[in-house]
């Protein structure tokens, strides 16, 4: 299969403008700026079927079309690139930024042109120190060549590109929290509406997209939406996709494949199979820790938005966490609950208190101090979080909890009845 998004990964000098241009880089931007209106770019992306790779799978062209068609000089348009990548199990955006920063830049500029932005802010998580440095160098090269800044490629359109580093907070990946953070505040999510296209950062029309999402744009513009529709599963699950494989497999890593790769192929072919041949597959979290878990017997599934939705879970950020039979499901879920409790921003009572409850109750079940009512307590706390919060972090803690408790209820019950763990360990071991 042709590698598209990762075609430059591993190439000597892949971070440099020279290598990027030699592979046809910035031709899409040239083409768009010289022969297409911003709305024509948006139309092409709409036609391609591209859906957001940040987690929710929202159609990208449609999102761009929500932006005002005229720019009010008092309210400039902003394009925010979400490079916060903090969803447990996810490490694809880092690969793109570190290995092919110009691809991320060209995609960001194409989106910026489509929505008539005057500044692109790339919000990158604070821990990616090297990634930010690599982006900065690429941006300097792009400015020097006239791909960014004033009057780009003589088109009359000007757009600055600024890297903005976060400082350690998972919640800043949520789009409204990201805007709060960019404005110089604590990363508190805001209620929607207003939606960012109407009133986003600094009250101005704003569009926000994930790094991998915009990395698709150069290929769509250069080769056309009709070509894009031939990759993956048209009409609604199109294009190439980066899958992040971690946990108990022989070869963890980022794998590119057309959208809709069968899960078994990812684990047993690309990933080289289970880490230990004597241990069977037990469960897979398919879309980062925020989505419901799949039991081994549910793993006959294609990895795309709609196939996973049909199984009651989500593609999310395509962070696949593979667990073998040695893993204690109580310990795994306790670790997930710890994460959400730690990362809850604390604005909404159901999330702040609920995540704390989940963590504490799971910890006591894991320790052999659980009581018979605990399983129903976990479910009721989770159900009281869902739908009652400002942002989706609350749901992201509750949905996995419900799935773990219902799908592995016997194992949870065993901990309570026997004050010990049926896997014989506290947690899965490599």
């Amino acid at each position, binding site marked *: 299969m042709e590698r598209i998004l990762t075609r430059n990964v591993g190439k000597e000098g892949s971070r440099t403008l020279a290598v990027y241009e030699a592979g046809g880089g910035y031709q899409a931007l040239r083409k768009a700026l010289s022969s297409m209106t911003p709305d024509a770019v948006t139309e092409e992306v709409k036609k391609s079927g591209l859906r957001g790779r940040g987690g929710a799978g929202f159609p990208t062209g449609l999102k761009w079309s929500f932006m005002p068609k005229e720019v009010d000089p008092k309210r400039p348009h902003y394009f925010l690139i979400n490079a916060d990548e903090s969803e*447990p199990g996810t*490490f694809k955006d880092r690969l793109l930024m570190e290995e092919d920063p110009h691809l991320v830049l060209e995609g960001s500029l194409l989106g910026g042109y489509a929505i008539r932005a005057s500044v692109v802010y790339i919000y990158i998580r604070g821990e990616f120190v090297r990634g930010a440095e690599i982006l900065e160098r690429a941006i300097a090269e792009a400015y020097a060549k006239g791909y960014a800044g004033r009057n780009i490629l003589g088109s009359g359109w000007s757009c600055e590109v600024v890297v903005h580093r976060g400082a350690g*907070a998972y919640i800043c990946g949520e789009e409204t929290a990201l805007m709060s953070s960019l404005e110089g505040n604590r990363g508190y999510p805001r209620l929607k509406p207003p939606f960012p296209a109407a009133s986003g950062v600094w009250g101005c029309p704003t569009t926000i997209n994930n790094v991998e999402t915009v990395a698709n744009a150069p290929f769509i513009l250069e080769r056309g939406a009709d070509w894009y529709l031939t990759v993956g599963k048209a009409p609604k699950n199109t294009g190439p996709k980066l899958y992040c494989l971690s946990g108990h497999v022989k070869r963890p890593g980022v794998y590119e494949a057309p959208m809709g790769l069968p899960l078994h192929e990812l684990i047993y072919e690309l990933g080289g199979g289970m880490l230990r041949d004597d241990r069977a597959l037990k469960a897979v979290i398919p879309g980062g820790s925020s989505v419901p878990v799949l039991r081994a017997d549910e793993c006959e599934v294609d990895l795309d938005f709609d196939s996973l939705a049909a199984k009651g879970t989500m593609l999310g950020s395509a962070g696949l966490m593979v667990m073998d039979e040695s893993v204690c499901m109580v310990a795994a879920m306790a670790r997930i609950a710890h994460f959400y409790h730690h990362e809850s921003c604390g604005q909404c009572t159901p999330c702040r208190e609920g995540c704390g409850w989940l963590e504490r109750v799971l910890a006591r079940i894991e320790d052999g101090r659980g009581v018979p009512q605990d399983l129903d307590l976990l479910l009721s706390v989770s159900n009281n979080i869902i739908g009652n919060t400002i942002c989706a972090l609350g749901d992201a803690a509750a949905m996995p909890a419900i799935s773990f408790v219902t799908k592995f209820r016997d194992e949870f019950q065993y901990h309570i009845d026997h004050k010990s763990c049926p896997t014989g360990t506290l*947690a899965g071991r490599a």
Partner: protein
Amino acid sequence: MLGPEFEKKIDAIVAKYPQPKAALLPVLWEVQKAQGHIDFASEQWVAKRLDVAPSHVHGCVTFYTMYKQKPSGTYHIQVCTTLSCMLRGSDELMKHLEAKLRIRPGQTTPDGRFSLARVECLGSCGTAPMFQLNDDFQEDLTLEKVDRLLESLP
């Protein structure tokens, strides 16, 4: 506070945003880079420079986990213990470091050389277990690799 060179750097950062307040995170990064941590006096200075309340600056310094209110060790080790890393042995890695350095997460060795922290997913789950050593990721770790790495530090 930190001299004219520093002030110039701050001016350039502020110019990248429509409002000075938006420069808060990058300015705090610069302060931390220059001083190793962000103390009360720096918070006051930043507040004045960006025209925000000192309490707002403090609120952000405490909200974001990467800003340090006190100095950390020369080598700051942040071990990811989130699920993918846990599956590949991050708990053993942490125990090994605790025993080797004789400190617990959140502490610094008496000689100020090492500090240890437990952190959440660092976006490096495919090369687990891992930790961040100052600015760099150390990936695909084994206990032997960690021993060699720590011994090689100047």
